[in-house]
């Protein structure tokens, strides 16, 4: 039977099968709007950049990002920038002459 199968972190090699078999049926997870919760994501990104795990902080968001690579890409980019900033790896001046 088609059950409410828990999300698998193992992606099927075929995107169609992955979509059919592995994606969650939790509508709240699927329809979570990364764009509308911008500020919450900013806070989460700060905490992840500081070493916390997103799966502990907000498992539903992590699951959402497992399915939607666009959201994941944007979140990971922000975390990377915050980490670089913390570690002093940002350029002192991008247009330095």
């Amino acid at each position, binding site marked *: 039977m088609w059950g409410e199968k828990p999300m698998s972190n193992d992606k099927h090699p075929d995107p169609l099968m992955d979509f059919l078999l592995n994606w969650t049926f939790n509508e709240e997870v699927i329809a979570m709007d990364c764009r509308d919760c911008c*500020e919450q994501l900013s806070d989460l990104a700060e905490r992840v950049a500081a070493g916390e795990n997103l799966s502990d902080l907000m498992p539903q968001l992590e699951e959402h990002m497992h399915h939607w690579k666009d959201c994941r890409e944007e979140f990971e980019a922000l975390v990377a920038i915050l980490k670089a900033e913390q570690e002093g790896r940002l350029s002192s001046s991008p247009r330095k002459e």
Partner: protein
Amino acid sequence: MYGSTRMTDQTIERTNDEWLTDLRAMQTSALSDLRERLQRSILYYLSQERSDLRDLSTAELEQMAEDISQDALMRIMANLETFRGESQFTTWANRIAVRLAISDLRRARYKDFSLDDLTADGEILPATASTTGSPPNPETSTERNDVMTVINRAFEEALTERQHRALAAIALQGIPMDVVAEQMGTNRNALYKLLHDARRKLRAYLEAEGLSTDYIMTLFQ
């Protein structure tokens, strides 16, 4: 190029309230400081985190970072009152800038992509799915083909045209949602819902055909 000088050496550190006060007052130094911070963040992202841009020169990356930062600054100023202080102001601002950068890069990468071309010939699904492990025996191979035939039929019979197109582009081809949303005249939220409904319809169709998740999963492993 990327020294270890901290941005605090270059710009004034402000609290969230100070940022808001100074920016609401359109204080030149605050605008300049914020733009510079955004520019550094975006330049870092473009130059260090994007392997697809490695062929661009430093000058080109700097120009991109400058343009994106300018656009981001305008967007931040237009949305200043939506900031609720739940994160550092600069993190909130960086998020807006990085989202803008990624959106611009996606649009540039897929500027020649056409959803119409993708679905024009009606052949969206592969005849067989990719699998792991050793090649299947003839019986398994036949079973897989049969299941793919049912899945193809489910696509044709269970989905609307829009669901069909969105699913083909996003779930199967990996086209970014922003690109697909723009071409379909919709937004990311609506696409989430569209694909969710499409998947539910597909699975209901397959279930009605007697194809269970476990069976398909085992067959295509």
